[in-house]
Every structure is written in C-alpha cells, then in structure tokens.
C-alpha cells in the first residue's frame, strides 16, 4: 500500500503569532481609516472622495469574503476532496462578513453622496430613474442590504460552526449535513451576490444596465479568493503552520483555480464590453464612454493587460504554480488587479477624469488591516485546518504529477 500520509501537523497556531496579527492589523486599520476620514474635513469634495474610496475598498474585501464563502459552499456542493485542507481558511475569511456588514454602515450614511438616484429632485425630473424608483429607493435598498448580509452571515456561520464541531467530535454526519445544505446555499448565494452588486455598484450609474454584471463580479470574487488562499497558504507554510498539510500540490491546485477564474473573468468582462461596443446603443455605451476618456482609458488598458493578457501567460505555467516566489508574485498581482478592476468600475462615477487620491490607498490599507486582524483572531480561537475532516488525508495525497 506504500506511501500513505497521515495528518501530522499542529492544528493550532502559536497564539503569540495570531495575537501579533490581530494587534498589528487593528493598528494599521485604525490609522488607515482615520487617515481616510481626514478627507471628511475637506469640504464636499473631500466627503465625496471619502465615500467613494470607502466603497472601493469595501467592495474589494467584501468580494474576497464572498469568494471564500462560495468556496466553502462549492467544496460541499461538488464533494471536492482536494480543497479539504483549504476549507477552514476559507471559512475563516468568510467569517469576516459580519465585519464587512459593520463597514457597510458608512455607505448607508453616505448614500446621498454616492448614489445619484437618492436625490429626490433627480427622481422627479429623470424619467428613467423615476421608472426605476420602485426598486431604487432608499428604504428598499436598506432592506435588501440587510437581507444580503443576513443571508451571507448566516451561511458563513453555519458552515464554520459545523466545521468546528467536527474538530471536536469527528462526526461524519456533520459533513453530510453541510453537503445537504450546499445546493440551497448556492442558490441563495448566487441571487444575493448578483443583486447586492446591482445595488452597490451597477446603480452608481442608475441609467446603465448589463445582464452579465453579476457574473463579472462573481468571477473577480472567485479569482481573488483563490489568490488570497494561495497567499495565506504560502504564509502558513513559511511560518511553520500546516507544513505537511498544505502541500505543494494543494498550492498548485489553488493556483490553477486562480488561473481558471482569471480566464473566466476575462471571458465575461469581454462579453460585456464587446456586445455593448458592437451593439453601440447610447444607453449602454455611456458607461464605457466615460471609462474610455480623460485618462480612464489607460486604466482600462491596464486592466486588460494586467488582469488578463500578461497573467494569462504567466499563470499558465506549471513552474510558476509550483514556485513559492512566483506564486506569491502572481497571487499578489491578481489581488492588486482585482482592486484596479473595481476602482475602474466605481471611481469614474466620481471623477470624470482619472484622478487617483491618497484616500483610495489609505481606505484599502485601513480596511485590509481590520480584515487581517479579524482573520488573525479566528486563527487564535480554533484549529486552522478542519483536521478531522474525513477527506483531509486524501487531499494531502493529491499531487499534480
């Protein structure tokens, strides 16, 4: 029978390391967000900048957390084996969704600054926005946001709690239970994810519409989830965590999925752009017209090459996926590109010409600090791997030879 592996790592992280992560994360978070808040003192323009920078950073981390939530659901839905070692990490990232719900509050506060359709005088005079008022109105928007976060947090907690219960009991019934719920959760996830981003991002331009928009956001979210997992896996193994559990094969597989979703993102983004360009109907092209002028076209080209053309060749390489340095560069780069992609969707609504602002960076760093801090707290509280998952050993045995 030969070379059977057994789980031999410490499922717990050194509390000092996790504690440090939490402390540093909180520190960076508070400083970063306070610095961002300084724009609020800079008049109306500064206030607008604050909310748009906030929305961009918020969307970045929310999509990563949602990607991780769907990773967990997908693992159970398809009864995957390879991802058993990654499962807890994804659960821990998705457990940041309550944090994202708190970070959503400033967006509710700043709705009037962010969303044009909240202005009553606009609704009164603009026929198109008036038509959409039954959907795009403040009350319903808030109710929907509560429903979206409620559903996501419930699902994230459900999977994480049952998974941790299994750490204690090793009960296989818990695996079956999570599998049983996975299909229903998939449906809930897909619908909430779509409409959340119709609300938060597509309605930034209340005239514009695209049926594929939800799929574009989904593709970016999944891509960045696999990039985040790869980076965390590299960080774990570098710090002596799960060195024998997160194998080179597992990293290779996560990188493959990152590559796959990079291509999928390109496919759906291209579909959206191309059909709108070819149809050339003013109500649709307005969105791209804004993004292809006054300097924004360079950001668009950066997204085209940085998010797809170059990574396509780089991430395709088997060598890259198995080299720790190259994988770290590739995954870090893809996360950066995910941010640029969201920035390109959001910021032209505020600035009609390309106009980077330091608050974009401080909001990103600040929220990133909090995101890492709360992830660190989960590392301290429970095992970092679902070590009694009945599929874990089999996932360690996979390698791509």
């Amino acid at each position, binding site marked *: *029978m*030969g*070379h*059977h592996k057994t789980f031999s790592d410490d499922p717990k992280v050194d509390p000092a390391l996790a504690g440090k992560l939490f402390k540093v994360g909180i520190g960076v978070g508070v400083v970063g967000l306070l610095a961002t808040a300084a724009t609020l003192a800079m008049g109306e323009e500064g206030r607008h900048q604050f909310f748009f920078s906030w929305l961009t950073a918020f969307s970045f981390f929310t999509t990563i957390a949602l990607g991780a939530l769907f990773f967990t659901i997908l693992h159970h839905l398809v*009864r995957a*084996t*390879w991802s058993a070692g990654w499962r807890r990490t994804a659960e821990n990232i998705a457990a940041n969704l309550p944090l994202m719900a708190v970070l959503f509050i400033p967006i509710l506060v700043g709705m009037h600054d962010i969303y044009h359709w909240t202005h009553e005088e606009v609704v009164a005079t603009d*026929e*198109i926005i008036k*038509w*959409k008022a039954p*959907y795009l109105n403040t009350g319903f928007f808030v109710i929907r946001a509560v429903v979206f976060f409620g559903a996501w947090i419930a699902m994230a907690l459900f999977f994480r709690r049952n998974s941790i219960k299994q750490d204690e009991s090793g009960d*296989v019934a818990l*695996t*079956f239970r999570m599998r049983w719920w996975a*299909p229903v959760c998939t*449906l809930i996830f*897909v*619908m909430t994810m*779509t409409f959340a981003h*119709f609300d938060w991002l597509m309605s930034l331009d209340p005239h514009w*519409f*695209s*049926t*594929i*928009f*939800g*799929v574009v956001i989904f593709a970016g979210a999944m891509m960045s989830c696999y990039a985040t997992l790869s980076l965390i896996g590299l960080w774990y193994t570098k710090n002596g965590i799960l060195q024998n559990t997160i194998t080179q094969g597992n990293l290779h597989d996560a990188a493959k999925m990152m590559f796959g979703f990079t*291509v999928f993102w390109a*496919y*759906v983004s291209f*579909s*959206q752009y191309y*059909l*709108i360009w*070819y*149809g*050339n*109907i003013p*109500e649709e092209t307005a969105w791209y017209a804004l993004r292809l002028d006054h300097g924004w076209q360079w950001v668009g080209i950066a997204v085209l090459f940085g998010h797809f053309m170059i990574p396509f060749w780089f991430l395709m390489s088997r060598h890259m996926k198995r080299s720790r340095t190259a994988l770290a560069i590739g995954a870090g780069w893809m996360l950066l590109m995910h941010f640029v992609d969201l920035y390109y969707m959001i910021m032209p609504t505020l600035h009609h010409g390309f106009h980077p602002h330091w608050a974009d960076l401080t909001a990103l760093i600040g929220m990133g600090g909090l995101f890492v801090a709360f992830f660190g707290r989960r590392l301290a509280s429970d095992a970092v791997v679902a070590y009694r998952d*009945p*599929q874990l*050993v*089999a996932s360690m*045995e996979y390698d791509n030879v």
Partner: protein
Amino acid sequence: MSAHTKSPDGVFPPPLVQGGHDFGSVTDTICKIVEEPPTAGWFAAFAVASSVLAMLGGCIAWLIWEGTGIWGLNNPVGWGWAIVNFVFWVGIGHAGTLISAILFLFRQRWRTAINRFAEAMTIFAVICALVFPGIHVGRIWAAYWMAPLPNQMAMWPNFRSPLLWDVFAVSTYFTVSLLFWYVGLVPDLATLRDRAKGKIRYYAYGLFALGWRGANRHWQNYERAYLLLAGLATPLVLSVHTIVSFDFAVSVIPGWHTTIFPPYFVAGAIFSGFAMVQTLAVPSRKIFGLEDFITVRHVENMNKVILVTGTMVGYAYAMEFFIAWYSAAPYESFAFINRMFGPFGWAYFIMVSCNVITPQLFWSKRIRTSMTWTFILSIFVNIGMWFERFVITMSLHRDFVPSSWDYYSPTVFDILTFVGSFGLFFTLFLLFLKFLPAVAIAEIKGVMPEADPHWDGYHDAHVAKAEEASHG
C-alpha cells in the same frame, strides 16, 4: 485511493466499475457489442433511422431545386427553423467535449465510462448542425463562399459578421473534437484488431490503430497528447456557443441584444448536451449490458449537471427579465412581455416548463437515480432547449414597424427537414455502436482498483503465494 476505504461510508463515492469485473471481462463485455452480429432490433432501428435520413436527403434536394420559399419564412421572420435547428444541434454537441476535456482537467474520473459515446454524439450532433447553415444559403452551389477563399473576383465574406466566425468556430470545434475522439480510440482500436477473427476486420482496425502495441513509450505519448488536446478543447467548449450567441447578441434587436448571452448560451448548450447523453445512455446501458460501467452513480452525476446548468439557464432568464424592466427601455420590456403573453406565449411556456421547472425534480434523489424518470426528463430538456432557440428566434415576429408584424408557421418541409436531421444523427450513432467500442476500454481499466500498483489485491495474492510456498 486506498485511503478511501478507511473512511466511513458515503464520504467518498462508490467504486466506478461495479459487478466484480476484472480487466479481461471489461474487454469482453465491451468488445462483444462490436464483435457479435447485429441483432434484429439493431437492424430495425437502423432501417427506421436510415429511412428518415433518406427523407432528409429528399427535403434538401427539393429545397435546392425550389429554394427557401418552401420553408415558412416570411418578412419579419427572416430566420426560421434552420437557425433554430442549427443552434439546437450545436448545443447538444457541447456535452462530449465538456465531459472529455473539462471533466478530465477537473480529475472527474467518472467521466471515463461516458466520454466515448458522448464524444461520438458530439461529432454527430455537429454534423447535423452543419447541415443547416450549409443548406439555408439558397444558392447551395455558392456555399463555399462562406469560407474566406482567395478568388479572382476579390470577394470576401464579411469578417465583421458573427456568421463568419461561426464557420471558424464550429469547424475548429469539429476538428478538435474529432481528433480528441480519435486519439482516445487508438488503444481500443488496437484491442479490437488483436481480437479480430477475420482478415478484413484485422486490417481495418489495424489501419486505424496506427500500429499501437501498448508500449510504454506509446502510452507516454498518448497521455501527453490527451492532456494537450484536453487543454485545447476546453476553451472551445466555451467559444463555440459564445460565438453562436453572438449571432443574436451583436445585433440591436430587443430580446437578442443582452450581455449575458454568451455564458447563458454555453450553460444551455451543456444542459441540452447532457440531456441528449442521458437520452442515449439510459437505453444503451440496458440494451448492451453496460450497467456495470455506466452505473447509477454516473447517471445521477449527469442529472446533477443537468440540474445545475438548467438552473443557470433559469438565472439567465431571470436576469433578462429583471433587466428588461430595470433598463426602462420600452422596446426591451415589450419584447419580453410579448415573449410571454404574445402570439408565441405557448412556446415560451413550453420552454420555461421544460428547462427550468421539470429539471427541478432532480432535487429528489429518488428521481435522479431512477432510469425511467431520467429518460423522461431528458426528453423534456431536449424539447425545452429546442423551444428556447425557437422563442429567441421568434423575437423577430413583431419588429419595430407594427404594420409588418406577422405570425410564423413552419411548412411541412421545415418539419420534415428537422425530423430528418434525427435520421442522420441516429444512423451515425447506430453505426458507431456497431463498429466502435461504446465505452473507452483502456480508460475504464485505469479507474479500476487493479490499475493502482499498490492495490491490496496484489499484496494479498503475493502473501497467499508466499504462504503456499512456505507450506509446500
């Protein structure tokens, strides 16, 4: 993997090959279908299929003689059943490559039992699909103009037209699918050659087996070629139906021009392809005694794919409807209300019932493991997906000028041509069943426990032998 045996029941799926087969009995069971003389049932089916094929020939001949006036096309509806049938068949052709390429890359080993005939089905479906653009052009003798051939008249097809991209996309797809299928067949053709009783049989299979001897080097090259073809075929699974969707979506016709069309068409194609695989697999496994290879688990997995892709199609319908309202574009809203409650509302309800509602029955494990239910629901999906393309095409019947609105009715030639394409499909499929192994023999062996060099059975046999020796 032997780690699986230590885990509790149900965590890992059951073995892929049932019925206590060894390598020899696998070869025998599958080769028997090809080696035994055709049964009366096969001849009866073949007689029906080839007669229907002859009818297709008659319809096409009359079309070429008389022109497209024999079809039900009218002024607003310039695209009728020909495009519907084309998209229908191309869509069906997606399951084969998805099973053979994408599931291969995803290490879904259950694909091995069904990939061979899903790929065959793909090739035959694409042949059926290619008939329609070929014949619908009117002046059939100028059909070669579809390809960009240099000529002294300096006439070129319109490179900006997705109809031309279809020519490239579908022909690339056909070529790669055929290569993929053939590469996979080579080891099995050699098996049939080695078992051949007659000289003709021996040389015929021998010619196509390309001198395969099962050498280590042969296998290494084979595995590499297979992986590369899987990688090449994967983007094709998406590209073909994406470009087919462009046929509609690059226009500005309400109901056609929407950004979700590419992935929505691909999901629909996989959905219809898997349904056709089920329509063929469920009876075939019974008739030819392949139940140990195409097990209930295989059928159940395919039903799950049908449920998932059917739901994706449902998602696309929902997005189209929501955005039709949300866009506040009056033409878009009209197109969708007309689709539902207009003269073709009946077709819309057939589409939604068969594509979105009935596949939901597969949520029940009892239904998705029942062969009768699977067969019935797969037929529903086939019907629903034909109607989906019909509904989309019929967006034309009420165009921007109400005075030119018209209803579309097919003529008898529309109907017989479509029915005839099934004759072509089944004739090819029946020939395939009789001349080529319907299940990939070599691949099936690869997923059996004996294929693992560390298999317990070898160890046990070794111990038993050693014990025997020591006692002796």
